[in-house]
């Protein structure tokens, strides 16, 4: 699905060859500051490599229109920003930005359930707790019509039970629908339980794969 060839990004990343396969859950682990988030940003073209190339389904990313690419490779950022308005407004943000027809309310309710967020669609997004905001942001991303999902520490602000529930749904659903997932996590348990492939990053380089 993704192939890195001699990729350098500033003095942060040095990835001569890294491959991420389609249809599986790949997890990036590694110490803070090792470059995991930067890799995700490269994958959905929020930034581009200083040198080298990244291929997506065999095509050079530099040649794929960025906005279109971001619509098919959806990303949950590490500290997602909330838009003013309600929980519902935030769930619909992606649809509005992409000018897609809005979904039924039942689909939104279902998403709230899937991310374990017990709030009404009309409640204010700004008044949610940190973990609730994170789950809302996750729901917002899950609603996107993408083939690849990038999750940057989706469960860092969640307790263990909620974490298990959310990650299970997330990976389970994606697998059913044949989606590709790239996950960044600091949790050893999450990495070992849910991933098909674990990539260890340290100092901007690949240190190992399992």
């Amino acid at each position, binding site marked *: 699905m993704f192939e890195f060839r001699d990729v350098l990004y500033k003095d942060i990343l040095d990835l001569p060859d890294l491959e991420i396969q389609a249809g599986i859950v790949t997890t990036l682990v590694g110490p803070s500051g090792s470059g995991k988030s930067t890799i995700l940003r490269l994958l*959905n*073209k*929020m*930034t*581009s490599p200083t040198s080298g190339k990244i291929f997506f389904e065999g095509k050079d990313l*530099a040649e794929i*229109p*960025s*906005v279109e690419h*971001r*619509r098919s490779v*959806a*990303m949950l*950022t590490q*500290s*997602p*920003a909330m*838009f003013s308005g309600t929980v519902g407004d935030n769930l619909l*943000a*992606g649809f509005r*930005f*992409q*000018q897609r027809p809005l979904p039924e309310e039942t689909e939104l309710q279902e998403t709230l359930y899937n991310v374990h967020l017990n709030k009404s669609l009309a409640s204010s997004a700004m008044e949610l707790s940190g973990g609730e905001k994170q789950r809302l942001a996750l729901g*917002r*991303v899950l609603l*996107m019509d993408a083939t690849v999902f990038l999750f940057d520490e989706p469960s860092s602000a969640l307790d263990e039970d909620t974490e298990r529930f959310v990650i299970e749904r997330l990976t389970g659903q994606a697998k059913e629908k044949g989606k590709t997932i790239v996950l960044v996590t600091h949790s050893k348990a999450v990495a070992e339980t849910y991933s098909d492939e674990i990539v260890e990053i340290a100092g901007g380089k690949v240190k190992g794969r399992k």
Partner: protein
Amino acid sequence: MKGIIDLTIPQILLAYVFVFVVLFIVRARGIKREREILLSSVRMTLQLILTGYVLIYIFENPHPLITIAIILLMEGFAIGTVFQKFKGKLSRKLKRVIALSMSAGTLCCLFYFLLAVVQISPWYDPQYFVPIAGMIVGNSMTGVSLGIKSLTEGMTMQKNLVEEALVLGATPKTATRDIINNTFDGAIMPTINSMLGMGIVFLPGMMTGQILSGIAPTTAIAYQIAIMLGILGSVSLSVILMLVLGYRTFFNEQDQMVDS
């Protein structure tokens, strides 16, 4: 109608009493502004005397090239003032956008105003061209300044929201929609507010000047109404041009936000 009372030099000197009052106040309170107050008074006096003589010369020798030179000078000065105000904060591309939108916005409105509304002839008649150009360019400069300030602040302070929108598949245009609309709103508000208060809270300068010089208030009012609308048009056009062209300078050709 009686004519205007010509101010003699001793009379003008009497007006400097106000400067001494201000100097007295700041000195008594220990506010260190004497230098600026003196300097600004002297500069204003010299600049206006000079302008007076220049205008006399221009009015007596109307020439299209002189008029063109004056409008170019005004535009250059206005654009330079904006650049100076945001020194070091504007990218080269944004500067180009500012220059282009200010010139295009003001010139379109200016020529429409002079040729279609006032219908001056010849088109370069400096008696109309110069003061009206001054008002239109000056007000548009203030509007664009406000616009640049709020655009750059918006793009820095709401950078995370813009990024989030991009991540969620927005085009740069959609991602910056709110910032641009708020900026436009903020930039034309002063003009709209001054229109609201006009004639009640204050009498605008141009109208006051015309009335003092013995022109019938109705004529003065007609001019004031027209010029206010012209200013509103020119401010809006310059600012919206600056915004629709300017937002792009915060993104690269890969639709990624550029680090400032």
